[in-house]
Structure formats: structure tokens, C-alpha cells
């Protein structure tokens, strides 16, 4: 596969919304926006609870903790599973999984009140082919740029640049599901498919 040359890489990084990089080696710090950052963290990007009640970011985090933590304390015990990467990343096959409710427009939407199923997304899916059905986070930005919750375009670029060896043919999306137990059959099926397809590295992105 041809590697992108530096000019092509630079044009990718400028992006459709204008120049987004600086050319210094270190991140440049902008001047104070602490108050603005505080409000954006606490109140904007609201999720909608039960489809009706707008909740700020802080309450959203609290809700996610009270749902997840008791289940994890029961389920995530014992030895941590560990599979060291056996090849360089540049030779590895990568699969992408998202819990942001991403799926093909042509596919059945996720049930917004909770859905234990998964959707398959092909590696060449374009932004226009994809949509999101999820109501527990503000998906406005993700609908503008799907890479925020499902970075398939970025990974296709990295495959073209030979940063990763290969993108798997099939990738997976999950919707909102508060019960880990109900999700388990889908998790096991996706794990089986990933293992069968010879993937080396799975990248998991949350909602």
C-alpha cells in the first residue's frame, strides 16, 4: 500500500474545519479559560436522562458511576486478562469497538432505552453511511465528526500511512446498556468473531 507523503499528511491534519495544529514541538497553552472550561465541563454537552430530563455532565458522570461500579465490583475480580502485543503495531491488525451507539444508517437503530445487541460496521464505512442512536450523551459533535466516538476515518488514514498493519474488515458498535449481564452474549459473540478474524489489537472507545 502506498504511504502518504508529508504533503498529504499535512493536508489531512489541517482538516476541513481549518488549521488545527501548531508547528511547535510542545502543545501551546492558551490563556485563561478556566471559567469557560468549568462551565463546559459541568453543564454543557448535556445528556438526556430517560429521554426527557436534560442532565449536566457532572450528573451524567455520577449516574454512570452508580450504574457501573456495583456491577464491576462483582464481575471484574480476579486476575486481569493479559495478552502482550506480539508484533509491532505497524504489522498488527486492528479492530475498533465503540459503545457510542454508532451503526450503519441502513442497519436497525439501537433501542434508546437500552439495547443488548451489537452492530457490525465495515472498515470502509464513510461518515455519511453512519449514524448514532444513543441518548445518554450529547451526540451533536459526534454526528458532525464520527471519529470522536468511532475513529474509523483516522484509522483508515493510519493504515494508508502504514502506521498500523491492517484494519480489520469488520468493526463493532454497541448502544446504551446498563446491565453487563444482559450484554454478555453479545460480548462473547463479538469476542469470538474478533478471535476468528486474526486481529492483534482491539481499540475500545466509550460514549
Amino acid at each position, binding site marked *: 500500500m502506498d504511504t502518504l507523503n508529508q504533503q498529504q*499528511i*499535512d493536508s*489531512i*491534519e*489541517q*482538516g476541513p*474545519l*481549518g488549521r*488545527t*495544529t*501548531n*508547528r511547535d*514541538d510542545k*502543545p*501551546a*497553552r*492558551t490563556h485563561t*479559560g478556566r471559567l469557560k*472550561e468549568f462551565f*463546559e*465541563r459541568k453543564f*454543557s*454537552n448535556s445528556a438526556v436522562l430517560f429521554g426527557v430530563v436534560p442532565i449536566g*455532565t457532572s450528573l*451524567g*458522570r455520577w449516574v*454512570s*458511576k452508580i450504574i*457501573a*461500579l456495583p456491577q*464491576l465490583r462483582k464481575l*471484574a475480580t480476579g486476575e*486481569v*486478562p493479559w495478552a502482550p*502485543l506480539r508484533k509491532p*503495531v*505497524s504489522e498488527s491488525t486492528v479492530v475498533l469497538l465503540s459503545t*457510542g451507539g454508532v451503526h450503519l444508517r441502513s442497519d436497525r437503530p439501537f433501542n434508546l432505552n437500552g439495547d443488548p445487541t451489537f452492530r457490525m460496521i465495515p472498515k470502509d464505512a464513510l461518515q455519511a453511511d453512519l449514524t448514532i442512536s444513543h441518548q*445518554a*450523551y*450529547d*451526540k*451533536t*459533535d*459526534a454526528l*458532525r*465528526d464520527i471519529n*470522536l*466516538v468511532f475513529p474509523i476515518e*483516522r*484509522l483508515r488514514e493510519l493504515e494508508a500511512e502504514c*502506521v*498500523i498493519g491492517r484494519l480489520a474488515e469488520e468493526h463493532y458498535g454497541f448502544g446504551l446498556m446498563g446491565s453487563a449481564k444482559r450484554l454478555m452474549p453479545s460480548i462473547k459473540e463479538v469476542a469470538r468473531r474478533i478471535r476468528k478474524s486474526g486481529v492483534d*489489537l*482491539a*481499540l*475500545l*472507545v*466509550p*460514549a
Partner: protein
Amino acid sequence: MALALVKEVAVAANAPRFLYLHWPFGHALGEPGNLAQQRTVLHDMLSMAALAPRPGLVIELPYRWRRESYPSVRDWATPSEAVVSAVSL
């Protein structure tokens, strides 16, 4: 290799590799159209995948929401500074 937006959940999950970002839900890779930011996060993920010395690590990335500029990732083969410094602690 997983991203997390709620640190306590990442720690409790007891998973092999987690990167935690103090960013809003729906923005695990950053801001719409900010390719350099998204590529930076992917570089951190790939670096941790290659470099994590043991399971169960949750590395907190230092990027402040909407208050950073991100340089281009020039050398993908070299692990990211954020991951190297966290792993060597």
C-alpha cells in the same frame, strides 16, 4: 486498549490497558474536525498498546479540554511522551 472518560469506572474495570481523559462524554477522541488532536489520542493508544509493562494500568492523559493545541505526530514508531512518562513512573 481502551479509552475512558470516567476514571473510577476505568480503575474498577480491572482491564488490561486504559487511557483516561478528563473530557466530556461523546468526545473520547476530542473535538470535531481537530485531526491533530484525534491523531494524538490514537498515538497515545498505540503507544500504550506497545509499551504497557503489565496489565491493569490506567494512564491519565494530561490534555485539558479545549485549552490545548496539538502538534502533528511526526514519528508514530516512537511512543508518545505522555505514555512514556506515565509508564516510567
